């Protein structure tokens, strides 16, 4: 019978609360500011490029490099879960590329960028593109220390990418609506996507692009404050 009786033993001590104000994103933010300061010392402009897997981030960066490399000394930090495919593609353009593999993480964080900067000859650079891991959600939460944030979406992702991922667009300085040459085949109206973006973020510059025929590449550069 005794094993059916709940025995409450008195515990020593008491329950008490401690008020805290510990910001969980502070560490990342501080490293991001440090990255930013460090790049400013060398007068480097840094662009964080974000967007879904397959939206054309690497292709757009390649197109931007070929239209900008006469004016700027450029390097690229390539973020991926694994492989050096993107860094290899960038290297074809003749600019230094560093691959940062996150292993299992879905986003780059400021600490990974700090490490990447340690491997770069900053005194030989004017412009750094940081290609984030393909993902429209997580990278929005982790600033890296860049000057501008460019979000790349493509018409092949369908008509709802913007309304489904508003936060990513809310913080963007520029948005490229890519693969415009496929819009008719996809039956997606880029003007509607543009409208969706403007509703969430009226400050963002929006450019329709195609890396195949060069549409809008210069306009993206201008939207980012770069002279092409």
């Amino acid at each position, binding site marked *: 019978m005794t094993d059916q009786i709940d025995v409450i033993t008195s*515990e*020593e*001590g*008491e*329950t*008490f*609360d*401690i*008020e*805290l*104000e*510990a*910001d*969980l*994103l*502070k*560490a990342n933010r501080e490293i991001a500011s440090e990255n930013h300061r460090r790049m400013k010392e060398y007068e480097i402009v840094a662009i964080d490029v974000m967007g879904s897997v397959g939206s054309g981030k690497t292709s757009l960066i390649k197109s931007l490099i070929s239209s900008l490399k006469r004016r700027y000394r450029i390097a690229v930090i390539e973020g991926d879960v694994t492989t050096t495919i993107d860094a290899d593609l960038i290297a074809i353009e003749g600019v230094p590329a560093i691959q940062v593999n996150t292993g299992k*993480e*879905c*986003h780059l*964080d400021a600490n990974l960028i700090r490490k990447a900067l340690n491997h770069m000859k900053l005194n030989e650079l004017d412009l750094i593109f940081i290609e984030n891991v393909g993902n429209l*959600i*997580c990278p*929005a*939460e*982790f600033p890296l220390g860049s000057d501008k944030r460019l979000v790349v979406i493509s018409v092949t992702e369908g008509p709802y990418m913007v*309304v*489904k991922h*508003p*936060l990513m667009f*809310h913080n963007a300085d520029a948005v490229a609506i890519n693969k415009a040459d496929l819009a008719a085949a996809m039956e997606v109206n880029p003007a509607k996507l543009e409208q969706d973006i403007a*509703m*969430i*973020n*009226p*400050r963002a510059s929006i450019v329709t692009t195609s890396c195949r025929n060069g549409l809008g590449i210069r306009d993206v550069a201008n939207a980012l404050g770069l002279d092409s």
Partner: protein
Amino acid sequence: MHELSIATTLVNSLLDFMQEEAAQNKLVEVHVTVGKLRAISIEQLVYSYRILTKGTLLNGSKLIVDENPATLHCSNCDFKDKFELVDDSFHFQLPTLSCPSCGASLNIEGGDELVISRVRMHGHPGRNAATRQFSI
């Protein structure tokens, strides 16, 4: 997916915090404030916390998430309103960001917090427990 990395930061911070606590003190509850605009799934955060705390000093402690609202503010005519969800069919959706009163674009204030706000302990409070500073 980033809930796991946020939970890892949270658990590591709390383990650091516990190092300064008396050995017999036990952490029972932690309150984290998450802004409404943070793309964080509370369910996944709580789940990650439970897994990560297993076998540690924090084993059995409970993570309680308090949501913090966001406010809409028009810098042109000073219109203010509570941020409301437009549609619950997705995670969340931002409202039209133009002022209903004057048409200028609206700013969103707050709603981006991610803060450990309070811990509930069991044991003996130290002399400075109520005012203890803690940084990550």
